[in-house]
C-alpha cells in the first residue's frame, strides 16, 4: 500500500491489519507519555483545501504521537483559488521533503490526481475529497463497530441520510462490504446516487423497515441547503421520515449502536437525547479516529524508513 485514496482499494487483509494495528496503538493514548518514536525524522503535511478542524486535529495528533514532524498547510482563504494551485502546492511540499501528504479537498479526485501526478513522491492519504470518499472515517467507523459488535462478518449496518453527497457513506459502503457486513442505505430517492444499484449494498426509502435487524445505525449529516435545492420538502418532513428519535431507537435490538460522523444537526437527523444516550458511540468515534490514523500513517511510512535509508 503506497497511498490511501479509497476505502475500496483495501483488501480484507489490509483493512484488518490497519484495524489490528490501531487496536495496539490505542493503548498509547492511555499512557502518561502519549508518544512512539516510530516516525521520528519524517515529515507529514496536512494539506487542507477545505476547513475541517476536527479531521485536521485528528491527523495532527496521530502524526505527533508517532513523533513525526507535522506541517499544517491550510489553502483555504489564502491566495489559492485557481486550479493550478494543487500542482504548485504539491511541488512546494515536494521541495520541503514531505514523506506523506494528508489531503482534504473540496474537489472529488484531488488526492487521486496528486498521487498519480509527478508532483509529489510522498504517500498520499485522502482525508476527504468532495463528495467522493473519506477512507479513514470509514476505518474508524469499522474500528468502533468492531469493538462493540465483534467481527463484522454478517453484521447489519444501516446508513441513513444524504448518501448522494456523503463521502462517508461511500467509503463505509465499500469498506464494510470488504469486511463482510451487510449494508443498507436509507434515504429519500433524491438523496441516493444514480447507479447505487451497482453498489454492494441494499437500498431502502423506508427507515422503519430496517431498524429491527440493524446492529449499527449510522446517521449522516443533512445540510439544510439541500432543502432549498428541493432534495426534500422541509426539515420537518425530513426529520419525521428519516430522523432517528427515541421511539425509533427503542426499536433497535438491545446491542445495537448509534453512530454519526459529526458534526450533528441535533433535532434534524438525530434527536438530542439519542445523541447523548448510552447507545451512542459518537464520542468514541472521535477517540478511535486518532488511533486509526496513527495506524494508517505507521503502515504507510513506518516500514519504509529502513528500506530507504539503509
Amino acid at each position, binding site marked *: 500500500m503506497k497511498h490511501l485514496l479509497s476505502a475500496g482499494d483495501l483488501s480484507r487483509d489490509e483493512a484488518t491489519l490497519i484495524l489490528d494495528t490501531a487496536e495496539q496503538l490505542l493503548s498509547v493514548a492511555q499512557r502518561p507519555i502519549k508518544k512512539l518514536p516510530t516516525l521520528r525524522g519524517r515529515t507529514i503535511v496536512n494539506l487542507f483545501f477545505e476547513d475541517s478542524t476536527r479531521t485536521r486535529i485528528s491527523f495532527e495528533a496521530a502524526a505527533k504521537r508517532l513523533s513525526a514532524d507535522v506541517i499544517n498547510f491550510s489553502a483555504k482563504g489564502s491566495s489559492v483559488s485557481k*486550479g493550478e*494551485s494543487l500542482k504548485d502546492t504539491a511541488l512546494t511540499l515536494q521541495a520541503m521533503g514531505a514523506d506523506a501528504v494528508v489531503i482534504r479537498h473540496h474537489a472529488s*479526485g*484531488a488526492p487521486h490526481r496528486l498521487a498519480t501526478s509527478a508532483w509529489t513522491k510522498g504517500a498520499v492519504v485522502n482525508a476527504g475529497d468532495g463528495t467522493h470518499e473519506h477512507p479513514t472515517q470509514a476505518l474508524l467507523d469499522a474500528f468502533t463497530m468492531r469493538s462493540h459488535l465483534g467481527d463484522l462478518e454478517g453484521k447489519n449496518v444501516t446508513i441513513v441520510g444524504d448518501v448522494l453527497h456523503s463521502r462517508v457513506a461511500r467509503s463505509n459502503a465499500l469498506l464494510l462490504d470488504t469486511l463482510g457486513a451487510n449494508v443498507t442505505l436509507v434515504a429519500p430517492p433524491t438523496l441516493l446516487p444514480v*447507479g*447505487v444499484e451497482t453498489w454492494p449494498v441494499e437500498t431502502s426509502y423506508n427507515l422503519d423497515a430496517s431498524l429491527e435487524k440493524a446492529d449499527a445505525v449510522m446517521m449522516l449529516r443533512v445540510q439544510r441547503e439541500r432543502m432549498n435545492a428541493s432534495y426534500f420538502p422541509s426539515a420537518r418532513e425530513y426529520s419525521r421520515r428519516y430522523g432517528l428519535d427515541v421511539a425509533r431507537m427503542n426499536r433497535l435490538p438491545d446491542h445495537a449502536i448509534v453512530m454519526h460522523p459529526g458534526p450533528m444537526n441535533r433535532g434534524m437527523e438525530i434527536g438530542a437525547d439519542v445523541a447523548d444516550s448510552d447507545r451512542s458511540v459518537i464520542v468514541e468515534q472521535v477517540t478511535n479516529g486518532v488511533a486509526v490514523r496513527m495506524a494508517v500513517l505507521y503502515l504507510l511510512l513506518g516500514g519504509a524508513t529502513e528500506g530507504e535509508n539503509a
Partner: protein
Amino acid sequence: MSTVIKGARILGDEVADILIEGGVITQIGTDLNGDETVDAEGLIALPGLVDLHTHLREPGREDAETVLTGTQAAARGGFTCVFAMANTEPVADTAGVVEQVWRLGREHGYADVQPIGAVTVGLAGEHLAELGAMADSAAQVRVFSDDGKCVSDAVLMRRALEYVKAFDGVIAQHAQEPRLTEGAQMNEGPLSGELGLTGWPAVAEEAIIARDVLLAEHVGSRLHVCHLSTRGSVEIVRWAKSRGIDVTAEVTPHHLLLDDELVRSYDPIYKVNPPLRSKDDVLAVREGLADGTIDIVATDHAPHPMEDKECEWQAAAFGMIGLETALSIVQQTMVDTGALTWARVAEVMSANPARIGRATTHGRPLAVGEPAHVVLYDPTAKRTIEPADTASLSRNTPYAGRELPGRVVATFLAGKPTVLEGKLQ
C-alpha cells in the same frame, strides 16, 4: 503553374492522376503532367475536409490558439475550411468581430475561416445578436451558435430559428439544459456516483434536442445539433428526420472513440462538454453516423493551455483539441470497422458540413471544374501521438501515447499546398 497529383486512389477507389491549374481541377485521368508533381501512390485522395465546429480562440485567448495556429493545425488534419465558434473575447456577436476573424483566415492562407455568429448578445441568452448584420457582412455568416452555452429560453430559440430564415441561416445548438447540469462534471451514471463527480445526465441533452426539433418543425426552419453524444439523442434526431423536420446533427471524433471509463483516472485531459458517455452511447453514435442519422463529424477542437488542465478535475477547463487527429479517429472507429467507406467519409467530413454551413466553394466533389481543395491521406501509416507534435498552441489531446492509424500527407487549398510530406508549407 500547374500541379499534378500522381496515382492517388480517389475516394479510396479508382487510381488516377489529378491535374490542378489556377486553383481548379482541370483534368482527371492517367499519364497527366504538370509543372509540379506530387507522388500519391498508395494514398487516398479526399476533398478538403470541412470542420463545422472549431474553436480558434482569437480574439481574446491568443495564449490558447490563434487563427494562424488553429488553421495550421486544421491544414495538418486535412481541413481546408473551418467554422470558427463565436465564444471568443469579445464574443463574435457583431459584424466587426466576424469580419476580423474571416480576414485573418484569408490573410494566413492555411484554411478558409467561416466565422459562426453568436445567437445572443455576449452569449448571455437574453437578446438576439444582430444576426442579419453578420449575415450581410463580408464574412457572410450563415451558422449561428451560442456554443459553450445552450440557448435554453424556448422563446428566444424559437425567434432565432424564425429570424435566420430570412438569409438561409441555421442555428447550431449546444444542447444542454442548464438546470439539469448545474455543477456537472462527467456523464451521469454509476461511475459518476462512484467517483463522487456531479453527473451530466443524458436527458439534459435529449430534452433540449427534443424541444428544438419540435420548434424547428413548428416554424419551418433549419436546426443543427452540435456534438450529440447519447443514444437517446440519436433516436430523437432519427425520429425528427423521419417526420421530415429539417434537422442535421454532428458527432465529435472523441465521442466516437472514448467512453466515460477514462474518467476513472481523474485526468482532466478527458474532461469535455458534452462529457464522454457510456460504451453503449459510443456504439449508438457510431450507428447513427453510419446510417445517416448523424450528418457530419465535427471536431469541437477546443484548445486550452496546460495550466487549465494540470489541476484537479473540478477546476479544469472542458475541452480537447482534435483537428490533427480527427481523420485518424474516423478511420479507426468507422472505416476500419467497415461502418463507412471513404466516399462516405468525404460526405460526413466535407460535403455535408459545407452544405450545412453554406460554404459553397467547399465540400465539392473531386471533379473537373471544381475548386482544388484536396487532402492526400495514407491509411496504412501508424503514428503514436505526441502532444508536442502539433501546430496548435495547446497540447490538450486525449490521445497522448496512443497509436492511431493513418496520416495526412498533403493538403491543397485551392491548388496551393498547405501541407506537403506531412509538413506545413
